[in-house]
């Protein structure tokens, strides 16, 4: 884990002041800003590295352990570099019945790395219920778009497109 004293240096001044504004908005409860800070930093960098975790802890006046507790509880917060793209395939009960295990296997075969690991370009992650059970199996792309139902062909195409990107 990086030293907490050097963390602010890795973040541009404009971004840092934006984060500070969010903390100020939380008033006397700076810890309430922790989710917002993580969301902003993840949108900016794609994931939360140790330096950024320490930065969030310092800005929110809580221990790094508290921030890590939150990061590891919520699957949408990434603590490892996922590559340029992230595909989350729902593996909860409805999607499981609708073929999610097959899709996950297929994604593993195509990406060449186990679930949760990056092949340098993208990562495929199993995910808890996306709330799209009526259109199972569902997927969540790059934290922005949902694809439901996700067909095998659409999955193959999506991963091929990502592989072609330079």
């Amino acid at each position: 884990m990086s030293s907490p004293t050097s963390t602010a240096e890795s973040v541009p001044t404009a971004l840092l002041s934006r984060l500070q504004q969010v903390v100020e908005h939380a008033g006397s409860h700076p810890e309430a800003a922790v989710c917002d800070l993580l969301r902003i930093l993840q949108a900016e960098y794609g994931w939360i590295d140790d330096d950024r975790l320490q930065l969030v802890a310092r800005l929110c006046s809580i221990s790094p352990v508290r921030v890590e507790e939150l990061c590891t509880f919520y699957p949408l917060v990434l603590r490892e570099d996922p590559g340029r793209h992230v595909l989350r395939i729902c593996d909860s009960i409805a999607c499981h019945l609708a073929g999610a295990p097959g899709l996950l296997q297929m994604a593993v075969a195509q990406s060449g790395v186990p679930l949760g690991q990056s092949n340098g370009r993208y990562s495929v992650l199993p995910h808890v219920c996306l709330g799209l059970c009526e259109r199972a199996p569902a997927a969540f792309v790059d934290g922005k778009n949902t694809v439901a139902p996700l067909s095998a062909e659409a999955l193959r195409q999506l991963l091929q497109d990502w592989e072609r990107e330079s």
Partner: protein
Amino acid sequence: MCRKGIVPTRCAMAEVFYLDGEAIPFRAGQNVLEAVLEHRQESSIPYFCFHPAMGSLGACRQCGVMVYPHDGKHPPRLTMACLLPASRDLQLGRAEAKVQHEHQLISELLMRNHPHDCPVCDEGGQCHLQNMTVASGHAYREYEPEKRRYQSQELGPLIRQEMNRCITCYRCVRFYQDLAGGEDFGVFGSRDRVFFGRLEDGPLESPLAGNLAEVCPTGVFTDKVYHQDYLRPWDLEESAGICPHCSIGCNTRPGAARGHLRRVRQRSHGEINPHFLCDRGRYGFRYVAAEDRPRQAQAGGRRQDVDSVLDRLAARLAEGRSAFLGSPREDLDSNLALFALARVLDAPFAAFFEPWEEAKAREILALPHPPAPARISAYAEILVIGAVERVAPTLPLFLREAHDRGAAISLLRCLPSPLTALAGEDRLLPPADLLDAAWEWLGQRHHRPFLLLIDSESVGPELLHLLRREIGTWPDGSGILPVYRQGNLPGASFYAVDGHASRLRTALAGNDYDHLLALGQDPQEMDGLWWRSHGDIDLSLIDHRRSLSWDDVWLSLPCAALSERSGLYYNGEGRLQAAAVAYTPAREERHWRPELGPFPLAAGGALREELLPSPVELCRALAERLELSERWQERLRFYRDFLLRSAPRPGDPGVFLPEELRARFRLHSAPPPRATDQGWSVCRFSHYSEEELANGARELHSLAPASAAWIAPGQQDARQVRLRAVDGTSRTLPLRELPDMAAEVLAIPRAELVFLGLRPGDGVNPEWLD
């Protein structure tokens, strides 16, 4: 949820409810499980996540009972006993088949991922999970998939983690974060992949981390020090001990076997340590096994047998040119034995070598009714002066509970403190300003009883004196509780704080005395400056640790360690408690062919006792050689009878030093503080592990930082600092920055303060070096 705390609440037992037809009494506010646990020695309801200090969580789902509604309309329902408030005439069932099946199922679920490594688990034989699993009737594993596996962490020299054994009861994290206030340990993940640990490998930072081994209901966190010298818990002989490492006097349960002291666990005392023990108390005992612990008598640094050293010592005492020095960390009888010897020889005696320390002891003895540590949480207003959490690491537990109950806590400090999170008022001050700030705080209107919690190592006697004299004007019930690292200060100094230290020094500095016999106190470690300037005094030491002067003194006599003898100790509230003999040191050796080395007892070897004499036995031997045995015994009996109107036995709650005996110290005045120039001053830096005896506990002491001078960040660019004593000697220390400490203050360890002849608050002229 029933509101819990580390201090048991006291209220009248009035009503009953019924469990399987048996009437169970309960107090208002208790839940069903709590009432059953209090009523019966062994609970008939299995449970995991409930803990008397942490309350109910309902996470483990193990403590189900059947509730029978009185209305006759609703069917019986299964409810968690820890979440069910006890109420009058409640009808509950535990013995029925449905409930038992439920307990069995939950046990099976909890055991789903638990490894079957009980034969090699340190918790075996004292495992709550094992007991509850057997009690609930789950015996055969039917779950087939692979067990969940974790990579455990390396958590330092005191605690061992085996995360695969976890049943997710959350006790560890609730203790560590909520009660101990630790910030380096947490719970990560969710669902069935929850991990309890640190961000990365490394020693746990809380001085209460050792409690994890007792809080965990199974073997996830175990005592790493015990593991080094492990025997099954049922092979240990446990006794009633008293922690000698600070003034709180926590009750302990030392466990020993085959001539080795192997572990110390907490023994509950409702007024002192209801549930927990600090790591100094838990691991400090290892000083008895320190590699450099003295075991041979010496004369001039050369080994000699005890008898010849005693002969020489007795001959020297007979010359009538010897003074005596007791010790506030030694037990009552040892001090009285030495004091009685000094009196029959009509020789000077002091319990302290430093008059300044003696004046503080006098003020501590004069305090009326210091409150019991566990009563701290009952105060609505508390002023904390100095680094109490470094001196007595269990105190934050009580302060945190007081805070949770709404107490207003004010903090006056020089060093960073974990208590800042609890303090409404937090002032960072040089030590010389603490008194004025305390006075200012007292000047505010306080209508409710309040408590002053004082780190007496950071302040001078004048502060204690001035505050103590004001007690009569405070609201009834207000008080002062001083904390310090000596385990028996009132007991050692009761007869010898009326200027005895000054008289001892005057005697030694004059021509009439040229020899000092010191018990458990090395003058060089108490006032190096004075001792250096009086190099012609011969010193004889009786101790069980190798002090600074041990190998250079005229005579040195090793004695039994505190846990190797029984003893009586007065704690900071003036409560006298008794400790039993924890063990008799012995070495395992074989009966035949000794050239092959030790042979285990289990394989037919023998135990050879290696018990050293106690200080009382050494004093008795000296009295016999001086042919003063009868007079010595008579004196000893007189002092003992006067001070001990009723002597407690090990395991008793203790008896108090009578108030009228304390009152005689209230006539004294305190010496004025030394004048301090504006500019840099010194304060004492200490780690929680630090204490004269505990410093010899290898595993615990390995956590203490290296000696340095600590300053607030941004004050100096230098790498080192040199400080000079008035005799021209100097000390050069590496300079380290310590966030959140007072400006223009140098925090240095006690050994350096003593060497330089400095006290907390003294002004200094530091030389900054690159």
